[in-house]
């Protein structure tokens, strides 16, 4: 049984799209600006009204509470948002030291002021905040866009490990062909809200 099933998904300017994602599978998503990549991720996270059906391990999305679905099918927007002063206040459970270290942080980072973090630090912390509760599907919108090459490598390694160890599915929006080749086992290309090439 596939981990994530998408059947006839439509939302404004998008679809209908149908595809499946297996447990542990990594799917790269690309396409020009305005092709509907972010719209697709938002619809998968049930943040936008949409038509069609979504299911996680065979369980229809509508049979789960919306908050529960989003804890399992976790969406990382391209720009992270923060609403408390301290980094640590945004974590409902604390990340393991190994995870912090894998992204190049020491445990003191949780006491940092969000306002003093750089864009790249916020992007990595937002990713950490997303994966700490252990979601089964990750929907990542250009998660390394603001990072230097060293941190791109760190993030890619952490996410590949995460998918492998937990058999989590991954959908990764990227514009970089080299990165798509590194992280994607499959590759979907969107244009005008439709899949133009899929492997």
């Amino acid at each position, binding site marked *: 049984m596939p981990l994530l099933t998408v059947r006839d998904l439509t939302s404004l300017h998008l679809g209908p799209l149908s595809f499946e994602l297996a447990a542990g599978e990594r799917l790269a998503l690309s396409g020009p600006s305005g092709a509907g990549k972010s719209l697709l991720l938002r619809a998968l*996270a*049930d*943040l*936008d*009204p949409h038509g069609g059906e979504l299911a996680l391990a065979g369980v229809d999305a509508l049979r789960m*509470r*919306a*908050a*529960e679905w*989003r*804890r399992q099918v*976790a*969406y*990382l*927007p391209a*720009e*992270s*948002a*923060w*609403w408390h002063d301290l980094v640590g206040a945004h974590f*409902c459970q604390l990340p393991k030291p190994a995870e912090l270290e894998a992204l190049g942080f020491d445990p003191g980072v949780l006491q940092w002021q969000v306002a003093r973090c750089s864009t790249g630090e916020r992007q990595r912390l937002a990713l950490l*905040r*997303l994966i700490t*509760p252990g979601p089964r599907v990750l929907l990542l919108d250009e998660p390394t866009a603001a990072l230097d090459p060293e941190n791109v490598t760190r993030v890619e390694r952490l996410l590949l490990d995460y998918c492998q160890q937990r058999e989590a599915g991954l959908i990764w929006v990227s514009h970089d062909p080299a990165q798509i080749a590194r992280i994607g086992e499959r590759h979907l290309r969107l244009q005008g809200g439709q899949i133009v090439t899929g492997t």
Partner: protein
Amino acid sequence: MQAITLTPFDLSLAALLILLLAALSHPLRLGLERRLLLSALRTAIQLVLIGFVLEALFHYAALGLVALLALFMLLVAGREVRARQKRPFTGGWGFGIGVTSMFLSSFSVAILTLTVIIGPSPWYLPQYAIPLLGMLLGNTMNGISLALDHLTGEAFKQRATLEARLALGQSAVEAASDLRRESMRIGLVPILNAMAAAGVVSLPGMMTGQILAGAPPLEAVKYQILIMFLITAGTGFGTMAAVWLGVRRLFDERDRLRLDRLRAPAARP
């Protein structure tokens, strides 16, 4: 002591001050003269009309007529609540949320006061019922329009934050908790400020009116305290209801933030 009757000449002197202010606005390029004059004219016409209505109503003190005037006041207040928001809810909700919460709070507080606390006979005696309801509605309307304007305006501005919280698995109620608290606070600020300044900085309008009409100050003070408490309770309950309904409408049954349910502000040239 009898109140001193005002002559039309007295009122025209006061009107001269408004004209002076408007005349000053022109060379200073404040652009307020038109609005100032129209508002002053509107006030005068509305108050004269309500004066005639009250004269008639006091003469035929029928429950049906009192209820009709109360309904009219409620609907106008509902329209005003919507007009004061930059991004009101679309459809009937923009009007309905304000009207429902004002009805629930102002009317129940007014009826409770008339029947249990003041106890005129009959309980709907217009001399008591209409001014009481008017004060409650006016203040509740202020609180609700401020709170709803904050709620809808900030929901629009904080979209990224609200959706980030939803995306991390928070329910709509959790994601909107800070916004809800802040909207409540904003709605209650005017009445809290009024209570803090009452008697020290300003003599509240109702008490001033009673004193001018010849009532002993301590009697006027008792009424003013009663009214302050009622207004605070009415505004608080009304604002609470409006914010609760507003948050429910901002999110749908799948806890999605639905900014498409807000009307975009009219484009200004």
